[in-house]
């Protein structure tokens, strides 16, 4: 009897849980999954987007992309950004969060605002600023030449390697503060007494960081990793606004190339092909996120 009552109470609670998550779930189903299903159908088709025809063979768009040199270049570029930029940015973000979480630090608000400022600046200005700083006659060149590091002005955005480096720097500049905010919020959820206890146990700063901070921040780290991987694999704005994919497609990202194919910017739009490439990106992100969650999530 008593058992039964408890069961129904649990069932009631579980039902309440379902009610809470319903609005969000329904919205995502309509605004993300339903369009995705439609996009998948389109990815099997070809022709102008007003008059799509079934492909023959049906997966032609999918097999096609592997012999598309520009697309392969864009995959390579995107992964290069991912491998270099994400770890640097996240380590820097944790470091900054840790420093800013120090009880004794003064002007905390000021520093926090400064570090966060880049991601509050509008995209147009950010692109303009980096373009101007790294221009052949820009400030960076002036400084490097004066210091004797460079002999003459260098066209940073005009050479493949340096253009990629500028994009990576710009990404780090813009997004470190953003990630730092998550870590800071996570750190502030850790009670100070935990640290006090560690100190009493004789742990030094490095040990506390690895044994307390990182484990307690794990959910946040997993989240920011997934976010960053996802954001980088879908990188679009920087490629468009900073270099327009150039010189000669050496900095173009997957999303940029997909966008060009979707709306026919600089070419002819091929919607079916573009959505097929989208699913390629989707699968990549899903795999990486899955690995990440398996590695990072120790709760279950």
């Amino acid at each position, binding site marked *: 009897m008593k058992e039964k009552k408890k069961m129904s109470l649990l069932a009631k609670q579980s039902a309440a849980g379902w009610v809470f998550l319903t*609005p969000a779930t329904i919205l995502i189903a309509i605004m993300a999954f339903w369009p995705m299903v439609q996009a998948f159908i389109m990815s099997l088709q070809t022709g102008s987007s007003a008059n799509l025809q079934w492909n023959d063979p049906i997966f032609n768009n999918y097999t096609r992309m592997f012999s598309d040199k520009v697309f392969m270049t864009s995959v390579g570029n995107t992964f290069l950004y991912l491998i270099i930029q994400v770890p640097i940015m996240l380590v820097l973000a944790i470091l900054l969060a840790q420093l800013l979480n120090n009880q004794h630090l003064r002007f905390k608000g000021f520093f926090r605002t400064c570090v966060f400022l880049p991601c509050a600046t509008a995209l147009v200005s950010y692109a303009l600023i980096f373009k101007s700083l790294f221009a052949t006659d820009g400030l960076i060149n002036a400084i490097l030449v004066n210091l004797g590091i460079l002999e003459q002005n260098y066209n940073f955005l005009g050479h493949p390697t340096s253009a990629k480096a500028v994009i990576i720097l710009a990404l780090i500049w813009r997004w470190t503060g953003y990630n730092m905010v998550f870590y800071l919020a996570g750190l502030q959820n850790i009670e100070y007494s935990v640290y006090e206890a560690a100190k009493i146990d004789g742990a030094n700063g490095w040990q506390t960081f690895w044994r307390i901070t990182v484990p307690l921040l794990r959910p946040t780290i997993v989240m920011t990793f997934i976010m960053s991987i996802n954001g980088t694999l879908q990188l679009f704005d920087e490629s468009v606004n900073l270099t*327009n994919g150039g010189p*000669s497609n050496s900095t173009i990202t997957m999303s940029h190339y997909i966008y060009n194919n979707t*709306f026919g*910017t*600089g070419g*002819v*739009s091929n919607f079916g092909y573009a959505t097929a490439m989208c699913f390629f990106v989707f699968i990549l992100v899903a795999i990486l996120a899955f690995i990440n969650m398996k590695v990072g999530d120790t709760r279950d």
Partner: protein
Amino acid sequence: MKRKILSVLLAGAMTFSLAACGGSGDSGSGDDAAAEGGAGEGENTLTVMAWDPAFNIPALEAAAADYKENVNEDFELEILEQAASEDVERAVTTAASAGDYSNLPDMVLFQDHYIQRYVSDYPDAWTALGDIDINWDDFAAEKLDYSTIDGEHYGVPVDNGTVVCAYRTDLLEEAGYTIDDLTGCTWDKFMEIGKAVYDKTGKALLCMNADGNDLPYMMMQAEGVSQFKDGKPYITENETLVEIVEKLVQMAKDGTLLMPNSWSDYTDKAIQGDQVAGVMNGNWIIPTIEKVEANSGKWEITSMPTLEGGEGYASNGGSSLYITSNCHNVDLAKDFLAYTFGGSTETYDNALRDGGVISTYAPAGETEVYQEGVEYFNNQPIYADIVEMGTNVQIVEQSDYHYSARNYVGTAIVNIINGADTMEALQEAEDQLNFEMGN
């Protein structure tokens, strides 16, 4: 109290998401003051999408004022300003892809090179001009070639893309030349002069943005050659193209050809930054040149060099007005277009004065405004000269893949400058283009 507000909000959000879920999210709940649909409301109102507040928008305003004053005093033209021509293209693409044209305006201003593909891809988006009252013989043949599809006229020309070669006469003089030496000369001669100018003044006689690639296209059109032949890419076997690419690469190495990274560097740093002694582009570049007030009176314009010598003519850019299938008053739109851009010198005079928009309508070139000498260009009557040059532009084979071809050739040029083999790079461009075309 706080809780109450929140629960009201929550309830509201829930009902709302349910409503949206049924797909019946009625306009009553969501729409604010914004008008339904793109097409104008009133009997005498037309809407049009355009994109440059310093260029084609003043031209449209001039046309609207002209029509309002002389034909219909109740007429209103509502201009929907877009950020770039790309946005107009995207609006049409999105509408066509969704199969819903009801948000398109009555008319759109559209880039010439794209329109053929848009008409063939989205035939339902347009209204052919049919019996519109325009004497088409008054317009440059090359310009009309774009907007005429299967013998049917779709667009009314607005601005003119005729290529001008503008040179700094003072710098030429310093190097011991005059603009006459550059008129009708060969490209070899041009390169020689370019070197002399660069050695004397440190300024480049030619300029092209590295991601722009329109220069090779213009040079080829001046030779009467296209990147396409019989609908197929015509690149590695196109001796003219190969020769032009080799010349451009040589000029880049000599310092005669300046290559800024992007379009904005081209206009803002190279031209406005006073780094060039010459500019070769569609005549719409003129207002940019004129931004450097200190150089007033030092510029003059002429036609393009060619490989074998003789004056070359080409066209780059330029757009026309098209009536969409969503136009709520086709007769009014036709009448407006026929009266203004189809034959009113008043419209064209004001478009030139306010926006620097030059016509391809031949009679417009005869008006006083066009005949006036322009102080910035040493009192040369450049506008009349440009209209005149426009009539000489040759028709070359066009393709839906025009911009793709340009991109791949441009990429090849950058790669060759960075050390790639010429024929290999061009072969790659041709392969990539064939790939995209599905050949």
